[in-house]
């Protein structure tokens, strides 16, 4: 049993007008054994799947026609991440998911999941929920 990894982000996005969930307190994600995650992060994974992000970014987020999110999330701030996902980057082929309720409502959870992947704390794309 490996110790759980907690990652918190004290300074979380305030400037983006989206339904913010209360992620500014406590850890951004919790992961055990590299793939067992908290409910919030699990929701992030479900959001990732439902929006078919893997079609462009690859099943393991390592990039295809779209860039590697493992790399990009090392660079993007949470605000930049939100702006990109919700507003799109049309010139680069990135669609806007602002109209997609599933994505816009769970943008923080999506960020938590992808950040966990980018940090290397979540060691595989497919995660399961930590049993309570």
């Amino acid at each position, binding site marked *: 049993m490996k110790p759980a990894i907690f990652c918190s982000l004290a300074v979380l996005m305030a400037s983006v007008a989206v339904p913010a969930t209360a992620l500014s307190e406590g850890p951004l994600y919790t992961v055990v054994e590299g793939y067992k995650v908290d409910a919030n992060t699990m929701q992030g994974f479900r959001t990732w*799947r*439902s*929006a*078919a992000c*893997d*079609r*462009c970014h*690859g*099943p*393991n987020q*390592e990039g*295809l*026609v779209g860039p590697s999110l493992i790399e990009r999330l090392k660079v993007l701030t949470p605000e930049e991440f939100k702006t990109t996902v919700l507003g*799109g980057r*049309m*010139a680069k*082929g*990135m*669609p*806007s998911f602002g*109209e*997609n*309720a*599933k994505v816009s409502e769970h943008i923080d959870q999506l960020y938590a999941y992808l950040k966990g992947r980018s940090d290397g704390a979540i060691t*595989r*794309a*497919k995660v399961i929920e930590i049993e309570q």
Partner: protein
Amino acid sequence: MDMAFKHRVIAGVVLAWAGFAHADAQLDRAMQDPGNWAAQAGDNYNQRYSALKQINAGNVGKMQAAWTFSTGVLRGHEGSPLVVGDVMYIHTPFPNNVFAMDLKTQEILWKYEPKQDSAVVAQMCCDTVNRGVAYGDGKIFLQRADSVLDALDAKTGKVVWSVKNGDPKLGAVNTNAPHVFGDKVITGISGGEWGVRGHLTAYDIKTGKVAWRGYSTGPDEEMLMDPDKTVTWTDGKLAPVGKDSSLKTWKGDQWKTGGGTTWGWYSYDKELNLVYYGTGNPSTWNPSQRPGDNKWSMSIWARDLDTGKVKWVYQMTPHDEWDFDGINEMILADIDVKGKKTKALVHFDRNGFGYTLDRTTGALLVAEKYDPAVNWATHVDMKTGRPEVVAKYSTQQNGPDVNTKGVCPAALGSKDQQPAAFSPKTGLFYVPTNHVCMDYEPFEVEYTAGQPYVGATLAMYPAPKSHGGMGNFIAWDAGKGKIAWSKPEKFSVWSGALTTAGDVIFYGTLEGYLKAVRLSDGKELWKFKTPSGIIGNVFTYMHQGKQYVGVYSGIGGWAGIGMAAGLEKDNDGLGAVGGYRDLQKHTALGGSLTVFALPD
């Protein structure tokens, strides 16, 4: 052939022949001259055969690049240019520019740059490909990504008429080439991954007015199906489809977002006046969410050109569980089937089976695996026409959130849209194939208009316990359902093949080689590395007494973007020599046309 004939301008007179529809005289004449490449397959039969033989098995080894042309666009370049007389028509992926080039001077006579909203790019599932333009009635037809079908004056490039074929905001976009058959322009629709309801639509060649539209799913009248007259292969014979043949096979109104899109290549038999094409996957990719056979997704269709009425239909993969779209081309050829001369239709499906049907009646004659790796079904029951699914590889039986592993072929099929070719000299078919398997995990997904509606995560890799590569180029006997010879390739062969009277077959590879192989046994006679990976179709034409062979290069498409080494650690032992990363060692993006000829 009188070459001067090519330079004569033929007035666009519509001739009415007894027994078939109004042919487009201009296109018919152009197609009869092997010096032209007037349609995407060179003919209406999808044979991709040229009677030219200046370049042949004896001298192809001397072939050289004659000239090249940059399209100015990155991403996947599918289809091919057209050649009519002294003019070559060159198209590009999105933004779908078209160039008309004077072959005498190599000057650009006109260029058409459609104004399209770039938002459409995000609604395209598998790269921004476009499979080429069509020619007829003095016009060039461009099926744009944003679903608009443009008719351009072939001399000036000016828009003659323009129609909107779908709603890109709902994911209804286009990648297919339009096809001119008789006095109609036929086009389909893409967007199965957005829950778009597929249809085939015929537009009047003169005006762009809708002649008919036949849906793939739903009520009989919207599919243009006659419950009593439209037949399908049932219990070893052809029988009427009966009332509500599609509605009965869907839960509630799921047929409205049921897919069955039509983004492949179509063919036409003038004597029978029938148009042949295939329909794609049912939406979503999670089979548990859509109980039933999901008719008529994954089917081969024969429609009357004048009315759109369905003469016969045959579903290859009822209740798809693997994304085995049935859209690949239907090749029409008169061949020997089990010792009997037959007006056949031959189709290499994504599901890994090569089908031979009687194209007049729709009778099922042959269905055999054209890649020995195929494992999702043991065989096709020739009485019911249904595949015998292997439980282990059934994503329906294993259920959502279970990763079904080792399914062959992968979703991209034993062959995707890259068209095969036929040689009347051998009676065999020459098929570019994929040798790829997958892990497939379906999951619950909700439909939201205009948003992706996929519901499965896939990982693809080279077929295990084989030669380690991801493709083969094969010769197929469609009368017997047997592979005549097979040539292994490092990557999927994602380029349309070309056969010629010179006993040479041409095809391109994903690393970027154009290859010439011997008709009799596939022996490699010549190859040349073009600027980028090839997913375009090889074409040939004659100009001023010289035969040319050309092909687009420009890596992309599903072959280029869908081949991630999406392997989890436990799959790493599969000898993943292929995959996207490996491809990156060989090629990079960039669209160009390379044209070859023998030295003077």
